[in-house]
């Protein structure tokens, strides 16, 4: 990060996001930061690179702060895209009806992330607390 190292005592994320310690060993958050060209409040973005599909991207807005239970937190904008890069989606894209128009569909994200996890050993099953039910025949 060069000269823009963090002061982690000021910018903390509460909750389970810091719970596990082996993420870097598994190559989770080691991607290159994506920089904004804005000179006013450039966010820092990091994208997970474990999977070919459904990786998490986090954008940290360090200037947007709030105190939660006595802990100063910064605004984090999370997102999950379908694909890590354009070259990784050749097969899935041709499946009819797989990609509805418009914004990202969380049902597709669920399927992609679950399948991506199944293809990698040592990855916990993606198990959000809702289920997808098949409709029709």
């Amino acid at each position, binding site marked *: 990060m060069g000269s823009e190292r*963090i002061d982690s*005592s000021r*910018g903390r994320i509460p909750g389970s996001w810091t719970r596990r310690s082996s993420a870097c060993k598994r190559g*989770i958050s080691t991607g290159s930061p994506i920089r904004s060209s804005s000179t006013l409040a450039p966010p820092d973005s990091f994208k997970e690179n474990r999977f070919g599909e459904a990786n998490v991207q986090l954008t940290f807005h*360090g200037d947007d702060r709030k105190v939660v239970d006595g802990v100063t937190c910064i605004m984090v904008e999370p997102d999950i895209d379908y694909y890590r890069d354009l070259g990784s989606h050749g097969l899935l894209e041709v499946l009819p009806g797989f990609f509805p128009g418009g914004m990202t569909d969380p049902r597709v994200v*669920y399927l992609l992330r679950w399948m991506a996890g199944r293809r990698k050993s040592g990855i916990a099953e993606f198990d959000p607390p*809702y289920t997808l039910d098949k409709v029709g025949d």
Partner: protein
Amino acid sequence: MPVVDFTDTPFATLQQTRPQFCTIMSGIETNAAARFDALLHNDPADDFLAGRQASDILNIMTAMSDINLRVGHGAGLSRRR
């Protein structure tokens, strides 16, 4: 597309099964339980808009729960002012 089933997803249930999710949502929104529960609909008439938001939140927090941030390490999670 499959239909989303939110049977095990109300905020009160999440407090038992995924308490971290509730902590995070409550930190963001003071009325988190009511606002989140209001999203738990999968009505085709609204084109899955309400259910989409709830599913997005749950997908992201589930994925995030398996990701470590290197807090306290000075390795690049925010900027020096």
